[in-house]
């Protein structure tokens, strides 16, 4: 019997044009939480997909409990005891929690030659798992009604029901509140004490130090090193990941603020937020802090014409404007980088070029035939993506083949091309590695220095505190404070965000 639940030796995997994994190793002990870190595109996802049998490695070995792992079909991974909690959960929304857990192997009851699903047995078994994990979930609840946190717990319960010995968690906290994170960590510790090996993928440094025992770092598909978390500092870890020193994560330059560009007065949108009032000056970054459900995204969607206004006014350069659609918003000089890259950002099957120009298409229409000017499209695509340092094999590559950070840069390029005066950036660095994050922070700061005005929504307090000139704090659809940069602290923002 091996000391390790999982041993990956010298694993390599290439895709056309990319060496995604190049001799990667990873060893995970039972009862340990092992972080796998690396920038976007470092090869984390490819490695996990190899473990789950979704990709077949070109060379190298994977040993699971000392034996060579063969996974002819992804469903076999679960049966063997390897489970993954994906970043984006995909439950059968219309069916109850317990059916999601036992899908494909419902308990049966026989009547002669017939066999029926035994709902009672399923309920009892599900309850038993929930009690064991101390989960507060109803097995009969419709899965689609669950919060993201509860869906994750359902997935964990499912893994437990398979007696999984290796649990892979991909960015499990990206949409959880602080309380939910604490609860998740409690469950992780319990699984750890039961001898489950856990691979923990996250970009949030603070979590790695809170919950993980070891960390393996990947960079550009290569193995950089394995360390005990206890003997590591944040700076060392970042250096391992990016291969260089990051001087500052939040390089907001101080620039003199100009006139008021945008004024929002008593804005409300039914069921989302009420009575929001703020000013935004030229060159200013105005941060929006708050917990999930505070109404920040809804506020931004309303400003961009995606939601109705029930009362209040929006003024740009002192003149009242009416924004009923994203087209109106664009015409008024607004740009909107949405929080959900996949569902409202990228056009997955489209090329990098198509994704770069889609918000600016009309400016390429050439008279007299109203055809598109491809020479200018190519120049602009190259210029803006080079400026943002987008890494892509070519500008004709489908954007879905790029890493999250690079996709985000293309989306920033998309909006910069519209030459906006006011940029709304909703979670611009969500799910993005430290290197790309620092680059995006630098870009945001640069844009402000050039005289653009920026509304920045982020759930990461250090980001908000580091980047913003002023901070609007919201709580359940209400604006609870506007803090100056010099007065703001993590504690103060949290106080207003939780409205205590």
């Amino acid at each position: 019997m091996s000391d390790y639940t999982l041993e990956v030796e010298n694993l390599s995997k290439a895709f056309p044009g990319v060496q995604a994994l190049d001799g990667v190793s990873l060893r995970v002990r039972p009862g340990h939480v092992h972080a796998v870190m690396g920038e976007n595109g470092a090869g984390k996802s490819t490695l996990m997909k190899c473990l789950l049998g979704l990709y077949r490695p070109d060379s190298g070995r994977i040993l699971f409990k000392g034996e060579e792992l063969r996974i002819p079909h992804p469903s076999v991974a679960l049966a063997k005891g390897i489970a993954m909690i994906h970043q984006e959960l995909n439950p059968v929304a219309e069916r109850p929690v317990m059916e999601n857990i036992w899908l494909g192997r419902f308990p049966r009851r026989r009547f002669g030659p017939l066999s029926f699903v035994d709902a009672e047995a399923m309920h009892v078994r599900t309850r038993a798992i929930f009690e064991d994990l101390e989960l507060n979930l109803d097995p009969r609840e419709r899965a689609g009604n669950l919060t993201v946190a509860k869906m994750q717990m359902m997935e964990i319960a499912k893994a437990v029901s398979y007696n999984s010995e290796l649990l892979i968690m991909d960015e499990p906290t990206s949409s959880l509140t602080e309380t939910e994170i604490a609860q998740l960590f409690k469950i992780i510790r319990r699984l750890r004490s039961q001898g489950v090996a856990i691979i923990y993928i996250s970009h949030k440094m603070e979590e790695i130090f809170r919950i993980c025992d070891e960390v393996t770092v990947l960079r550009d598909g290569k193995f950089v090193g394995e360390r005990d978390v206890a003997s590591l500092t944040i700076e060392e870890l970042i250096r391992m990941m990016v291969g260089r020193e990051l001087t500052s994560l939040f390089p907001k330059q101080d620039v003199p603020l100009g006139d008021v560009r945008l004024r929002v007065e008593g804005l409300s949108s039914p069921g989302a937020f009420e009575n929001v009032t703020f000013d935004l000056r030229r060159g200013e970054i105005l941060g929006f802090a708050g917990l999930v459900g505070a109404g920040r995204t809804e506020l931004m969607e309303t400003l961009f014409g995606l939601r109705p206004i029930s009362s209040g006014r929006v003024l740009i350069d002192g003149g009242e404007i009416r924004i009923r659609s994203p087209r109106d918003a664009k015409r008024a000089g607004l740009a909107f980088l949405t929080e959900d890259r996949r569902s409202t950002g990228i056009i997955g099957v489209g090329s990098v070029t198509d994704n770069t120009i889609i918000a600016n298409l009309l400016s390429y229409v050439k008279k007299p035939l109203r055809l598109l000017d491809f020479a200018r499209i190519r120049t602009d695509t190259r210029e803006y993506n080079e400026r943002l340092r987008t890494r892509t094999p070519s500008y004709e590559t489908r954007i879905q083949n790029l890493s999250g950070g690079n996709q985000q840069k293309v989306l920033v390029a998309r909006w910069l091309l519209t030459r906006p005066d006011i940029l709304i950036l909703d979670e611009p660095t969500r799910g993005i590695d430290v290197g790309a994050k620092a680059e995006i922070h630098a870009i945001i700061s640069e844009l402000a220095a050039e005289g653009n005005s920026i509304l920045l929504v982020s759930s990461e307090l250090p980001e908000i505190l580091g980047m913003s000139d002023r901070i609007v704090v919201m709580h359940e659809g209400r604006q609870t404070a506007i803090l100056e940069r010099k007065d703001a602290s993590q504690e103060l923002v949290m106080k207003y965000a939780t409205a205590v």
Partner: protein
Amino acid sequence: MKNRLVQILNKYSLYLVLVLLVLFFSIATEGFFTVPNAMSMLTSWSIKGLIALGVGMVIISRGIDLSSGSVVALASVVAASFAQNPEVSKFGMPPVFVAVVLASLVGVVIGACNGAFVAYTKIPPFIATLGAMTVARGLALMYTKGFPVSQLREDFMILGRAMVGPVPLLAIYFLVAAGAVWVILNHTAFGKNIYAIGGNENAARVSGVSVELNLVAVYTIAAFLAAFGGMLMAARTAAGNATYGNMYELDAIAAVTVGGISHSGGLGTVSGMVAGIMILAVVENGLILLGVSPYLQQVVKGCIIVGAVIYDMSKHKRR
């Protein structure tokens, strides 16, 4: 090196299949590789080709159009009724363009309705166009009481029967339409919008694309092409008939599907559509020349459609 060859073969597999089919039927049958046979193929598939171009655009926008066959029927009877010989005509002897314009208008109206339902009521395109399919067929039957509209004027029929040298005028309409659709899809903002809407409607909307107007336009173009095809069919066959165009919508969907237009939207090219149309045309024509029974022909066609999609999807799998 080997990988590269596989890549190239994958990329051009559709055209390779077409060439192989042509080679096969040229060798296996006597009459296949002749000018008259090529012209008869063009004549019989040009109208379906027109429909397929429109349906292809709709599918790229992540929709579907089931109404095209019925639009063919309705447009054919409307066109025919304005192009009858004066002694049988209800409308005297209007100039030819009246028949053409009114038939096209049938398409524009039905298409705009399809698009409006899809865009503004959010009902699935399958349902919206299924309704239109039934309604248009019913209107055609009501308009004619089920009788064919025949005895058409020479000056109208020439639209569907004229030859330019050895090439039927019908084929030229198709080529012109294919060229126009190619320009629209590749070189206009409208075309890029269609791809974007099909690829990710929400992202397109946030980017300021007017999703609704573009959808109305794409369904309108599709039904216009079908109606134009129906008018041509009346001209070619010397009659309008409420039974025309039966199952044409399915042939059109099949052709562009074989041509690699993805039903998940956002993907597909005009050259693929044309190749798909030609593959179905060649197979149909070749099997007839081989003396294969019409029943077996249907079976073969069905297998090709499903096989083509299975192959197409297997290309994009990464493992």
